[in-house]
């Protein structure tokens, strides 16, 4: 039975009320439409949403449009109220004053990643949008992934081009809603072999950008879900995002474990965590073995979580549960003969490892 159907404790109810109040107090309401390339239909989706909201009686304005609008969008746009961009020193920016004075319920902005010309009230357009949100206006805005600051290197590795104007990911994470505009790249038409080759390469690039946009949206969604669950005091893990926890011990074959963990994390677009439990009376020999293994994890770029507690298995499981781990990697037990009868920490991990896969690695 899902935990939400349980009777809630007073503490949970209190937290819920507080969370709702906090949300209500947060100014404005931002919705992001995310695309992976131009021409996937973002503008159309944005303007169509404006049209539908207007048809439902909402007071909407268009606060920013791209210099070039697709032909199919022109007739849709003709029936909507547009607040034109303000011209400043040969450049242009959205007209924040005019929009705030007009006070619509929702303002639509196609294209979030613009640097404003010198002399504008804010250096960038996303800061203009922050102002609209603070003024209590809902904003629906579109952006392509190449304009997200944190993705610039990844996109450049795919396309060879680096965007000049960007929006920080942290701003997108404040959005109440984020939606991906997904459409596969167009099929290459029958062409000459060279053109065919070029079109195929282009399609591959677009597919990689598409993958990146889907994963980014999933990550933002995951971030917001975790936030929601925590603020509502729900300790529920959905496992929609694969998370791998590598447990470091003095005898673990960390090279193999890390290699496998990295491949699995990459294939699942998952997250890789590394942890070890501090031992009180560890021998010098074990300590140096442990240090060598921790160095392997660090070299692989992993952040290492140091855990404490009398019972190593419980410390690992508690940490794994709090992080929503779906796969726990651990080394085979060294115990032999009679020592096995007592049951090892590994036995305990397996016995109590509800809700996750425990993968035991050769030492």
């Amino acid at each position, binding site marked *: 039975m899902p935990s*939400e159907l349980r009777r809630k404790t007073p503490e949970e109810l209190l937290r819920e009320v507080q969370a709702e109040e906090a949300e209500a107090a947060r100014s404005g309401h931002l919705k992001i439409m995310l695309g992976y390339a131009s021409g996937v239909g973002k503008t159309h989706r944005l303007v169509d949403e404006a049209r539908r909201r207007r048809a439902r009686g909402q007071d909407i304005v268009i606060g920013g449009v791209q210099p070039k609008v697709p032909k199919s969008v022109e007739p849709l746009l003709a029936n909507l109220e547009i607040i034109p961009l303000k011209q400043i020193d040969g450049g242009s920016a959205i007209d924040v004053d005019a929009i705030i004075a007009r006070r619509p319920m929702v303002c639509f902005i196609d294209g979030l990643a613009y640097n404003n010309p010198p002399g504008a009230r804010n250096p960038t357009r996303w800061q203009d949008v922050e102002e609209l949100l603070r003024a209590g206006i809902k904003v629906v805005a579109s952006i392509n992934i190449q304009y997200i600051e944190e993705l610039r290197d990844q996109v450049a590795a795919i396309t060879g081009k680096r965007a000049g104007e960007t929006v920080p990911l942290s701003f997108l994470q404040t959005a109440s809603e984020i939606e991906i505009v997904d459409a596969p790249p167009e099929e290459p038409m029958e062409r000459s072999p060279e053109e065919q080759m070029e079109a195929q390469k282009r399609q*591959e690039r677009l597919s990689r950008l598409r993958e990146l946009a889907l994963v980014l949206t999933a990550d933002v969604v995951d971030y917001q879900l975790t936030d929601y669950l925590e603020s509502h005091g729900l300790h529920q893990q959905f*496992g929609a995002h694969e998370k791998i926890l590598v447990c470091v011990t003095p005898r673990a074959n960390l090279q193999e474990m890390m290699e496998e963990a*990295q491949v699995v994390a990459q294939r699942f677009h998952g997250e890789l965590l590394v942890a070890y439990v501090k031992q009180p009376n560890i021998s010098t020999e074990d300590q140096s073995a442990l240090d060598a293994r921790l160095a392997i994890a660090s070299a692989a770029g992993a952040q290492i979580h140091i855990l404490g507690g009398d019972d190593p298995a419980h410390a690992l499981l508690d940490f794994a549960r709090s992080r929503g781990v779906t796969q726990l990697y651990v080394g085979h037990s060294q115990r032999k003969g009679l020592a096995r009868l007592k*049951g090892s920490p590994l036995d305990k991990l397996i016995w109590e490892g*509800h809700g996750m896969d425990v*993968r*035991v690695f050769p030492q």
Partner: protein
Amino acid sequence: MAEQTRGKLKIFMGYAAGVGKTYAMLQEAQDLKASGVDVVIGYFEPHGRKETIAKAEGLELIPRKTIDYRGCPFEEMDTDAILARHPHVAVVDEFPHTNVPGSERVKRWEDVHLLLAHGIDVVTTMNIQHLESLNDQVWNISGIRVRETIPDWVVQQADEIVMVDVTPRALLHRIQRGVVYDRAKAEQALQNFFRESTLVALRELALRQTAHEVERRIPAADRNAPLEAEASRPDKHRRIVILITANPKTAMLIRRAKRVSDFLGAETFAVTVQPTGDLSGLSEDERRAIEQHLNFARNLHIETRILEGEDVAEGLVDFARRNQITQIYVTRPRGQTWMPVLNRDPAQKIIALAKDMQIVIVSDRETAGQRS
């Protein structure tokens, strides 16, 4: 039949009723028709939604076929009529649908495969919760055990998968406005499947699955090009074996192992070890359970074996050694104690015997409220 190219399959993927899959499918049909392509509606489910019905206007509709089952008429897609009409493209709603008993094929995806085999392109729709390998996770997320599932290999064969995305909040508003369901049903839907956190988690699953499907379709040589570390490392060959027993958790084990093996491109076997080398020595219940699990594995395109051996753990580890297996998948042991000498579950003995291999112990994805 003359040799012809197989039709192309495109799937619109969603995460709940009402996200706009059918609408997107019909929009695609309209666009195709506008550009002069011969397209028909093979099947669509209007659910009484006005905007969806309006989208179908002007498109040729192949009438459904009526099938009598226990004295009641049921309507299904008329696959023969579509084949006879032989359009360039057929749009077919609800890919995971199960046909009424008495239909020629059990599943709609089998009908779709027939259309594809005859060179007809198909555009179809499905929700992520119907994907077989995610069945346990969906249960964990929603508390609902989805019965109508579609094997992952069927989805993998599609040429294109497109995510139909809408935010859960927008979807909930749609439901409240009565666009998706009528009022009474909407109230009920909002209480159950449509709780916001459930929708958010299902949406995340759909986004990640679509990302994975996009990645799969990038030619292998270039797939990892931007990830230099990955490209420089030779892809190790992974071989997985799943231990089949009568334990009811075995279906979950198979789904999970298959999902991991698909993501890693591993070869997979499902194996049961019996003293007689067949299932004859078992009780009726056990035999039926093991047969069911072996069949389930075969339906997911996993190679199955029945091995002869007195001891399950020894037989399995021996098989693993002979077949260069790298990972053994077993269910979490049952019983009251994990005292090694007292527990008869083979998992523990396998771990002790196969210290040179990776062993994966899979446990159910139960929800927090269930755990004691």
